[in-house]
């Protein structure tokens, strides 16, 4: 629902590739979750060769599509695959201007939006693991790693 809401509200269409939040299902582990920009401490993506990127007042990444030369550098440098190119546009979460549609439409309350007060998350560990991985592999790795503690909890409770 987060994907369809995101895609629909921005384009009036439905497509995972038009969504700025992407659900990855790792079926054999029971883990599925959304990959979306974490507004990480490091901001790995910001090292743009033509300065097409900036950070907005909600901490969101803004890409200027007029300046952007489609070099893929931001996409390749994100450790979790939260930036993805589709039809000449890089899709990255911009928080819908402050009231994200994915949060509004998540009936499980699995996605929350908390205005940042404390320190941002670090994705340094994911960065180390992201070498030679493509966007999809980075997304899958992020969801797998994030699900590890959940899986441990399940086993502890039920086994």
């Amino acid at each position, binding site marked *: *629902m987060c994907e369809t809401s995101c895609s629909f509200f921005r384009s009036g269409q439905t497509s995972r590739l038009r969504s700025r939040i992407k659900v990855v299902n790792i079926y*054999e582990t029971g883990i599925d979750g959304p990959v979306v920009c974490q507004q990480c401490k490091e901001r790995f993506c910001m090292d743009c060769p033509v300065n097409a990127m900036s950070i907005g007042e909600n901490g969101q990444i803004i890409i200027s599509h007029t300046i952007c030369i489609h070099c893929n550098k931001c996409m390749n440098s994100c450790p979790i695959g939260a930036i993805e190119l589709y039809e000449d546009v890089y899709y990255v979460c911009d928080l819908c201007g402050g009231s994200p549609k994915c949060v509004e439409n998540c009936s499980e309350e699995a996605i929350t939006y908390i205005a940042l007060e404390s320190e941002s998350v670090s994705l340094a560990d994911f960065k180390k693991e992201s070498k030679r991985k493509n966007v999809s592999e980075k997304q899958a790795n992020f969801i797998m790693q994030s699900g590890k503690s959940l899986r441990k909890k399940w086993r502890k409770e039920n086994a």
Partner: protein
Amino acid sequence: MLKYGYGGRILRVNLSAKSYKVEELQKSWIRDVIGGRAANSKRLYEEIDPKCDPLGPDNMLIFGIGPLTGTVLPASAYYTISAKSPLTHILGDSAAGGQFGAEMKISGFDQIIITGKSENLIYLDITNDNVQFVDAPHLKHKTIFDTTKFIREEKRDFAVQVACIGRAGENKVLYSSVVSSGNRKNGRTGMGAVMGSKNLKAIAIKGKGSVEYADPLGLLELVTKMKTKIYQHEEYDKRHQMGTTMLMNDLNSIGILPTNHFQQGVCDYIDEVSGEKLAEVYKVKNKSCFNCNVHCSRYYVTDKIEAEGPEYETLCSFSSKIGNDDLEFALEMNHYLNQNGLDSISAGEAISWLIECQEKGIIKPEEVGGYQIKWGEKDKIRELAEMIVTRDGIGDKLANGATNFSKSFSKEAQDLVMQVKGLDIICGDPRGIKAYGLTYAIASRGGDHLRAEPYFELTRKYKLARQRFGTEKAADRLAEDGKAALVTWSEKIALLTDSLTMCKNIGLCMDILDFEEAAKLLTMATGINYTASYLEKILGKAIETDYKLNLKFGLSTDQDTLPDRFTKEPLTRGESKGSVVNIEKMVKEYRDLHNRE
């Protein structure tokens, strides 16, 4: 080209020639069937050689979706696989949710039609317009999880959706399934065997398009209302908590929970195997199909296994129906059947039928290779399932289905198979739900409820019953009056959900969808003008197409009936005590309504 709602194209694949072509979907062709199951049936009606061997190259294996599949419509995940069934030799089809249908949509294909037969085991790799035939010796005998994982790793893409078969399909067990999204089964009528007979292990699909709508804002307003209606539904919490496993207690409480192979409708150890217990003790997480706001599926963990599910039919088939009071064993079997791609209803019927026949002394151990099995004998049930999957020993016979196997025994043994037209009946004793009984009897794929899912008879909405069907009795589950009218109406709504597509649990059981609403949805999504009365008319016509297709397949007209157990032996305990089904009366009324001979 159909721009809105539909993918707009058809993919035809010939596995013998390893060739494919992409065709445009014509508005004039699709308009009177909408899409999904109805479109699959129309395709078979027009193109299949009815005399073809279901496991030969000429059988057509069709994957189909509808104009609303994979859209903003809630619970629009479903896709249907159709072919001539190797189990029943008539129309076979089976639907599943998950993510595969939505991926088909953004690939731009409304139907994928597969014919021919590959010489060696392969999988199809479909990325928009590009189809590759990939050799798959490394996937032989792999489970569903492993097949999915290997293909995704091979392609370095975890957004790829995979529909595949397990060992059961490869070994052409006649009731083997196709499985996608890890656990979502196109379970019934042996679509897995058809895929296996073509040496097709899997279809991997990745779309790169998007769905456009004729009136996106109008559609948004409508689906927002529908979502609210779903959230506010009285059964929402229960369905969210337990999914279809809520039926274990529901059906037991009205005395129709198949116990020891339909000998009883009440299970004494219900609390040990209920949906409530599953949710409390083993469930760890809800799981969802594409764009659903009920997300009724569940992930569970025991100390031995973890998996998704089970749905009610599997849970019942491997607990009360087979005399097993150990929930963990049923959960283990669910995982086993899913990963090997075996239909739990037909597998459960084959095994529990054999148990009853042996209990009654109708089939002696020496007639079945020395095999003797009793109610709830877990080790033997597990072993027998594996023998079916591998077609080993007696398993080779059981792999052809209880109906086919029973033909080598006495009439008594044959009568004990709970089937219609060769398809094993689902887990709901029709003696306490008469409209369901009628549905099993007339369903075009054989003994099954999904063709009509006349849930309405359980609602006790008497006033609405009078309004809709002319008699309050239509809402009385034990009555036979008004049931032909109910099933005739419900059959159209069921086909509507299968053709849009939308989940039947939500669209039909939760009474979310009607013809008016559907006409609006379709018009806004596709830009093709639909009205409620037009929809009713074409759905009625599509139901007759199924009927005529079955006549082409050689089905005789005297098979709209039920096993003697349901028409002659009254239930002896519980809330449906004393009841049998007067099937002839209902079938006659139904056939009159349909102007059938």
